[in-house]
């Protein structure tokens, strides 16, 4: 079959699963007074449509910041404004100031879901297709298989079409950024990434790799001549994009400060809810949230984050090629997720997202990683009533990846990665049968995750520990993530220059 038909079949399968998942419940459905993320997005449409720009981020009588105040950068606000205009055309009640709080109806749900689908088709899916077409190794069948796996990744589907968010916009824009950089269009890539950053501040998790990659490239071109001009052009692009996005807020110095205050709520503490990162897991043993002062917490998290991203960033700076770039993205997002301040469990999507783009070389591990990332969101999904789609999409994804793995004749590249561990362990534990251990680890983790999923849903936790199961899920996921970040750092740092022909590096 021709490529175009195979790719269109992948896209259609992806779209069908997305829309089928959207039939199910959303976050905060039928739960007054606060509801959930769905109501937050609706509320932002109401606020941006009815209030002038300078009031969006401020606490006024018309804009109560305690009820889902805007806490994403301006591009999200503009997007909500556009959606609000469409909503007004369809049914003005949806964005009535104050009166539309907690508005829920079948047609409104359809409208909101349609907005997600629309941006997905516009931004995310074309980026994925182009990425698989240009930057995946292997035969066209392998490219199509990669595209299918990426499009069917349950994490993004369930968060965007179930829980309700617009992650596909920021992730899609970031992917356009990677595409641009990969094709050698640095300015376009920087523009796209800056837009992504202005859509969700979580993209800061990835900004360091982008910065190091571009800086490294410019240095390689010679900082005194071409490199310098290139650097200047990139910096100008970034600054102009920022200026354009923040223009309405630059008239008054109080505005940008307030926006930043909303974006980075340092007042809210080290973490909220159960999240699979270091602080939450550490909190189970020692109550660091109460033990240390706010400033110490901030400093500690900053220091550890820096510690974990510095090696990979420096390596990228010295060797700015696409493979290192992708690895650095994964490492950076994992480090931020594990050690940063006020992290939400959905942020693991960023790390997962870049994992999918590491391509076939690490296939089995990748699928495993992706699965674990997804599993860590189980408590959130159960709370939203999304158990059925969770089970179906995760099983489908698992079987699909296992089938494609066996069907597409895994090459010895797997062994190359394995060789890394072997080099390390051979020195101290020469008798170890490494591949068997890894297989056992894989199956053990799967069983543990299945058991936890089952118990979270069907069993009642003991009265003394009402949060037992979410905490167990978080801790199990955290241990896996710690292992992953060490693994990926090792891969990036010990990796010799890849032998394959670099497609469009310059």
């Amino acid at each position: 079959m021709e490529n175009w038909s195979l790719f269109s079949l992948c896209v259609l399968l992806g779209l069908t699963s997305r829309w089928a998942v959207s039939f199910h419940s959303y976050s905060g459905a039928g739960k007054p007074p606060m509801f959930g993320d769905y109501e937050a997005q609706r509320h932002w449409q109401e606020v941006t449509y009815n209030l002038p720009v300078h009031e969006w981020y401020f606490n006024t009588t018309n804009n109560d910041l305690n009820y889902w105040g805007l806490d994403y950068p301006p591009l999200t606000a503009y997007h909500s404004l556009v959606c609000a205009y469409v909503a007004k055309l369809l049914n003005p009640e949806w964005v009535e100031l104050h009166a539309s709080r907690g508005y829920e109806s079948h047609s409104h749900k359809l409208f909101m879901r349609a907005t997600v689908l629309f941006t997905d088709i516009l931004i995310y899916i074309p980026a994925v297709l182009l990425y698989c077409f240009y930057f995946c190794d292997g035969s066209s069948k392998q490219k199509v298989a990669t595209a299918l796996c990426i499009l069917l990744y349950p994490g993004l589907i369930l968060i965007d079409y179930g829980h309700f968010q617009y992650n596909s916009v920021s992730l899609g824009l970031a992917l356009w950024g990677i595409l641009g950089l990969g094709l050698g269009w640095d300015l376009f890539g920087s523009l796209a990434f800056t837009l992504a950053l202005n859509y969700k501040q979580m993209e800061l998790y990835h900004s360091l790799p982008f910065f190091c990659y571009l800086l490294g490239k410019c240095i390689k071109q010679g900082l005194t001549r071409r490199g310098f001009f290139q650097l200047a052009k990139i910096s100008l692009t970034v600054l102009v994009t920022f200026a354009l996005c923040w223009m309405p807020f630059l008239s008054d110095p109080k505005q940008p400060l307030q926006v930043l205050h909303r974006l980075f709520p340092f007042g809210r503490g080290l973490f909220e809810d159960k999240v699979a990162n270091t602080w939450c897991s550490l909190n189970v043993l020692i109550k660091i949230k109460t033990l240390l002062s706010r400033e110490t917490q901030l400093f500690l998290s900053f220091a550890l984050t820096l510690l974990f991203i510095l090696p990979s960033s420096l390596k990228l700076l010295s060797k700015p090629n696409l493979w290192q770039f992708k690895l650095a993205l994964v490492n950076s997002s994992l480090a931020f997720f594990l050690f940063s301040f006020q992290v939400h469990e959905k942020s693991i999507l960023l790390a997962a997202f870049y994992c999918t783009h590491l391509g076939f070389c690490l296939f089995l591990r990748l699928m495993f990683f992706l699965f674990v990332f997804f599993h860590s969101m189980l408590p959130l999904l159960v709370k939203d009533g999304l158990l059925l789609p969770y089970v179906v999409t995760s099983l489908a994804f698992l079987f699909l990846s296992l089938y494609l793995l066996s069907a597409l004749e895994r090459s010895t590249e797997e062994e190359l990665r394995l060789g890394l561990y072997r080099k390390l362990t051979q020195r101290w534990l020469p008798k170890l049968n490494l591949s068997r251990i890894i297989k056992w680890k894989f199956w053990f983790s799967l069983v543990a995750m299945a058991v936890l999923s089952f118990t979270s849903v069907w069993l009642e936790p003991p009265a003394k520990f009402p949060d037992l199961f979410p905490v167990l899920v978080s801790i199990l996921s955290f241990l896996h993530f710690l292992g992953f970040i060490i693994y990926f750092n090792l891969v990036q740092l010990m990796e010799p220059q890849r032998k394959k022909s670099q497609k469009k590096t310059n």
Partner: protein
Amino acid sequence: TVMAAPMTNDQSWFYALALGVSFLKCLLINAYHSTDFEVHRNWLALTHSLPVSQWYYEATSEWTLDYPPLFAWFEYGLSHIACFFDKEMLVVPNLNYASPATVLFQRLSVIVADVVFFYAVKECCKCLREDKGKDLLGKPSFILTGLLLWNFGLLIVDHIHFQYNGFLKFIGIYFVCVCVLLLNLKHIYLYIAPAYGIYLLRCFCFTQSNAVLVTLGTIVLSTFAVSFGPFIALGQLPQVLSRLFPFKRGLCHAYWAPNIWALYNIADKAFSILGVKFRLLDINKLPKASMTGGLVQEFQHSVLPSVSPLATLVCTLLSILPALFKIWHRPNGARGFLRCLVICALGSFMFGWHVHEKAILMAILPLSLLAVDSRKDAGIFLMLSVTGHYSLFPLLFTTQELPIKIFLMLLFTIFSLASLKTLFRKGGALLNPLEVTYLLGLIPLELICEFVYPLTVWQKTFPFLPLMLTSVYCALGVTYAFIRLYNSLLTCSDTTKKTKMQ
């Protein structure tokens, strides 16, 4: 004779396709379900709670039992499992009861019953001619599995609208002599009974020993006996038959199936409008425009003669007689039988009384088997399947299901087009330009009916105009496919090597 080549050992792609489609069906559990859902719930309830003597007399709900007895027994069996999900669904007065557990159980029952269909498809693939060394996507068995397991019509009729067709198709495809079983499960299979009957008689009964005739006869009679037995003993046979064949229901269903009578209706309407315009007819003498109403009722034609059930029966028999005669005269092995089967199904669809648009699946599914084998059939299949599947669109009329039906339709169409094109690479295009234009015309039709028309003023005064347009446009395509099929049956000669199908 050349034996069919053995299948390669690696069968994992089959399970991948089967699992994949099952997962998709699970995701669609929460989609819209039609009144057929309540119909089946009602049957679960009444077979569970009432004694057998009451089954065909029960009328608390408007959805009375109107399938043959074996299906009633099937529902009875299901009801014992339903106890574990939600006992309330088995209470007859609980009309329109649709708790989450009920929805889950009913949907799962269709999904699980489809496993039987998967088995039949797997067996079918064994009979196909395989070229060794072909890549997976170009294998006829892979394409056939895709065309059958992921059939758009089955997906939306069984798993959204709600019915049990897949499971029944198992029996149709696999067991030749179980046409009787089918007749006892769903009398729509009367459409294809003549084909089975004639073929069986011709091939087995007069060429081999009388023992076969006796065996077949025994099987037929005993199956009918077991299934209808209790009702005959209770003297309820007339009541059962009246429930199964409700001739009071009118020439066409609420939404006209795209058959000859749709064209007949539109011609009648056109003549009456022209007649009034040119003062040839008196508008007061014409019956009210009830044909375009959405209710199931009897109506009269204005200009052309009205059609009675007997007339449709005669037309149907006339349409399928040449085909039956052909295979009696020269049974062309399995292919000839299948072709005749498709023609019988299509003929009954074209000329039958009160045909449901879902009946087009009875012709499309067997035609898939022929499509992976010959180029001409592939072309006819593409015409019939795209048109037939599009004609199913009005079944899912909710806004929520609109993207699903468009995506799935595109998925199936692209898959069938691309895979059949790859299979029959040599020998030119599968469809000629006229056919391509007709099929492309479905896109503006969909845009007009689904997006543009609801925004116009006519939506209030002529609400059924889009439905009429759809059925008439599709009727043209279906009629064309019927003619081409007949043409290929009557002009094909015996193949020199007969591939035996089980």
